[in-house]
C-alpha cells in the first residue's frame, strides 16, 4: 500500500514538473454549454486549419459557475482566459472598470456595420466595441396554433395582456393536462426577474426612475405582478415557482402549455422535432402590451452572448483573430454548410435576415429580428441605466435576486402581491442607498 502511495505522489510531481514547451499560441476560451457554442467547438478545427499558429482550448462551464469563475479571474488579474463568453449585462460594467480590451483589430473584412444596431450599441462603450456578439435574443410569445383554433381564438398581430388573459382562460384544460400559460417563476435576476422586468416595462414601469429611486411600488409594477400572479395561479402549471427557462421548455415541448413568453431562442428549440413533441404547431407573436404605446412595443428584453478579451490576457492579438472568425459572416456560412441554415446562431447580423435561405429554414426568423430591432437598451430620460430586463449596474444582481425571491413568494401564495412589492421596495432602497445612489 505504501509503495503505491509513493508511486502515485511521485507520478503527480513528475507530471507537474513536465511543462511542455509551447511552439504556438494557445488560446483558452471560457464558455457556456448551449447548442450554438457546442457547434462552434465542433468547428474549431476549421479555424485551426486556417491559422496553424493558434491552438484553441475550450473550457465549458455552467452559466453561474462560469460567471463566478470569470469574475474572480478578471478581478484578480489571474489571466486564465484569453476569450470569455459574457452577456449584455456584464459588458457595460466591465468596460467601465477597464477589465476588457476594446476590439479594434477584427480586420477589414469584418463588416462591423452589418451587426444589428441594437446589439452593437449594447456591446459598445464610448463608441468602442468591447465584445463581439455570438448570438442574441429578445422576447417572444410562443403559442399553440392548434389549441387556439380549437378555442376559436386568433392571435392578434400585436396582442395585449387583456387578450392573453382571455386566451389563457379559454385554452386551459386541466383535465387534459393543458395549462393556458407558462411563465418563469424560479427566483433569480436572470430567471423570473428577466421576465417580470420585461412585463413591468410593458405596463410602463422601470426598475429605477431618473433619480435612481426603485420603482417596485409604482402603478406599473403593481398591475404587472398582480396579473402575473393571478394568471399563473389560475391557469399556470403546478409548482410554477420553481420553473425556469428549461422547465418551461420541457412543459411546452411536451404540449402542456398554451402560451409561453420567454427568450426568443426558445423558438428554435420548440420547432425542432428532436426536442419537441409539437414542432409544427407553434405560432409566434410579439410580447404583449399592457398600456397604450408601451415602451419598445413590448420588446423589453435584449441579451447577447458575446465574446470578449479580458485585459489580463497576454494573447490579445490571437484572441481578436479568433473572435473575428467566430462572429463573422463567413462563420455563419460555414455553419449553414455543415449543419444547415436553421442551426446558424441567430440575432447578430442584418445580412442573415436578408438571406432567403435562412428565412425559409427558420420559421421564427422574422419574429426574432423584429423583436431584437425593437429592443433598445439605451438609457432614456426616465431610465438612467443601460438594459431592459436588467439594469446594468453591479448592485442589480443582488437586488434582482432578492426581489425575485419576493416574487416567487407571491406566486406560491406565501405572501400577497402588495407585501411582496413593499418588501422588494424596501430591499432595493436599502441596497441603493448603501451603494451611494443617486450618483
Amino acid at each position, binding site marked *: 500500500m505504501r509503495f503505491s502511495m509513493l508511486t502515485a505522489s511521485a507520478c503527480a*510531481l513528475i507530471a507537474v514538473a513536465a511543462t511542455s514547451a509551447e511552439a504556438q499560441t494557445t488560446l483558452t476560451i471560457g464558455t*457556456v454549454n448551449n447548442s450554438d457554442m457546442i457547434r462552434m467547438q465542433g468547428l474549431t478545427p476549421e479555424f485551426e486549419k486556417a491559422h496553424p499558429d493558434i491552438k484553441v482550448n475550450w473550457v465549458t462551464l455552467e452559466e453561474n459557475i462560469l460567471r463566478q469563475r470569470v469574475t474572480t479571474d478578471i478581478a484578480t488579474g*489571474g489571466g*486564465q482566459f484569453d476569450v470569455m463568453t459574457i452577456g449584455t449585462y456584464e459588458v457595460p460594467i466591465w468596460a467601465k472598470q477597464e477589465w476588457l480590451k476594446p476590439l479594434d483589430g477584427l480586420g477589414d473584412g469584418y463588416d462591423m456595420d452589418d451587426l444589428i444596431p441594437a446589439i452593437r450599441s449594447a456591446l459598445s462603450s464610448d463608441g468602442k466595441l468591447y465584445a463581439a456578439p455570438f448570438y442574441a435574443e429578445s422576447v417572444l410569445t410562443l403559442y399553440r396554433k392548434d389549441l387556439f383554433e380549437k378555442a376559436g381564438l386568433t392571435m392578434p398581430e400585436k396582442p395585449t395582456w387583456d387578450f392573453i388573459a382571455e386566451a389563457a382562460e379559454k385554452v386551459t384544460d386541466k383535465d387534459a393536462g393543458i395549462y393556458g400559460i407558462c411563465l418563469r417563476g424560479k427566483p433569480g435576476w436572470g430567471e423570473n426577474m428577466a421576465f417580470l422586468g420585461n412585463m413591468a416595462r410593458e405596463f410602463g414601469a422601470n426598475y429605477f426612475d431618473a433619480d435612481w429611486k426603485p420603482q417596485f411600488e409604482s402603478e406599473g409594477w403593481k398591475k404587472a405582478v398582480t396579473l402575473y400572479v393571478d394568471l399563473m395561479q389560475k391557469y399556470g402549471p403546478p409548482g410554477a415557482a420553481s420553473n425556469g427557462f428549461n422547465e418551461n*421548455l420541457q412543459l411546452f*415541448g411536451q404540449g402542456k402549455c398554451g402560451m409561453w413568453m420567454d427568450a426568443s431562442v426558445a423558438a428554435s428549440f420548440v420547432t425542432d422535432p428532436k426536442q*419537441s413533441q409539437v414542432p409544427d404547431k407553434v405560432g409566434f407573436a410579439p410580447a404583449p402590451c399592457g398600456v397604450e404605446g408601451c415602451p419598445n412595443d413590448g420588446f423589453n428584453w435584449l441579451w447577447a452572448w458575446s465574446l470578449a478579451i479580458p485585459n489580463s490576457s497576454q494573447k490579445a492579438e490571437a484572441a481578436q483573430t479568433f473572435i473575428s472568425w467566430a462572429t463573422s459572416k463567413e462563420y455563419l456560412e460555414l455553419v449553414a454548410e455543415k449543419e444547415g441554415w436553421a442551426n446558424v446562431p441567430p440575432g447578430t447580423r442584418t445580412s442573415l435576415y436578408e438571406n432567403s435561405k435562412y428565412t425559409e429554414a427558420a420559421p421564427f426568423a422574422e419574429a426574432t429580428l423584429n423583436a431584437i430591432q425593437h429592443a433598445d437598451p439605451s438609457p432614456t430620460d426616465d431610465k438612467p441605466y443601460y438594459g431592459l430586463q436588467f439594469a446594468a449596474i453591479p448592485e442589480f444582481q443582488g437586488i434582482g435576486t432578492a426581489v425575485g425571491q419576493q416574487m416567487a413568494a407571491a406566486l406560491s401564495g406565501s405572501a400577497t402581491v402588495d407585501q411582496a412589492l413593499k418588501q422588494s421596495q424596501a430591499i432595493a432602497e436599502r441596497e441603493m442607498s448603501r451603494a451611494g445612489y443617486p450618483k
Partner: protein
Amino acid sequence: MARNVTTGRKIGTTILAWFVGLVIFFPILWTFLTSFKTELQAISIPPVFVGFDWTLENYRTIQTQSNYFHFMANSIYLSLGSTALGLIFAIPAAWAMAFSPTKRTKDVLLWMLSTKMLPAVGVLIPIYLLFVRFGLLDSRLGLIVVLFLINLPIIVWMLYTYFKEIPGEILEAARMDGASLGKEITQVLAPMAVPGIASTILLNVILSWNEAFWTLNLTTSNAAPLTAFIASFSSPQGNFYAKLSAASMLAIAPILIVGWFSQKQLVRGLTFGAVK
C-alpha cells in the same frame, strides 16, 4: 413457535434492509437509466422506467465533445496525491496526539476541525491571489496542496481515533527492544492500524474526488478534474439531462469500482474499535 418468529423477523428485516438500500441507491439507478435515454424521453411525464429504446448516443456525444480520460487522469492525480501528502503529515501528528497527549491535545484537535467551519468561498479571493502570485493556477500541484490542506483535519481526526485503540504498551515494548522512532511508526504502529489507515485513504480519495468548489475555481483546462467535466454538461438553455446523466455516470464509475472492491476494508475500518 420461537423459530417461526425469528424467521419472520429475519424476512422482515431483510425486506426492510433491501428497501432502505434501494431508496438510497435509487438516484444513482435513475441517473444510470436516464443516461441511456434520448433527451425527450429523459424529461417525459409520466417518466419511463425501463421501457424505452436504449441508446448509447449520449456517451458518444460526450466523447466527441470532450476528452474524458484527460479529466479522469487529473482526478486520479489529485485524489491520490493529496491523500498521500495528507498521510505523510497526519500519521506523525496523530501518533503524537494519541500516544503522548498533553493537556492541550483536545484543544488542538478541536482547533484543527474548526478550520472546516469556514465557508470555502470566504477565502476564495485570498487563495486565488496567492495562486496568481505563485503561478499555481490550473496546475495539479497547487490543487493537490489545497485538497491536502482542506482534508488534513479529517485525516488527523480519523487516524487519531484509530491509534487511540492501539495499546501504548505495544509501542513501549518496541521501544524497549531498541526500535527507532521511524521504525516504531512504520513497522509497529502502521501494520496494526492498517484497517484504519485503509479506510482513511478511501474516505479521503472519495472526498478529494468529489470536491467541487476548489477544483472548479482554481482550474481551467490543464488540471481540470471530473467535477469540471460534469459542470460542462449543464446548460442554461436547452435540454441536457440525458447527457448530464451520462457524464455523471462516467465520473463516478472509477470510484464506484474502487469502492466496490474495497467495501470490506471500508466497513472494517469504519467499525474498527467499535467493539473491544
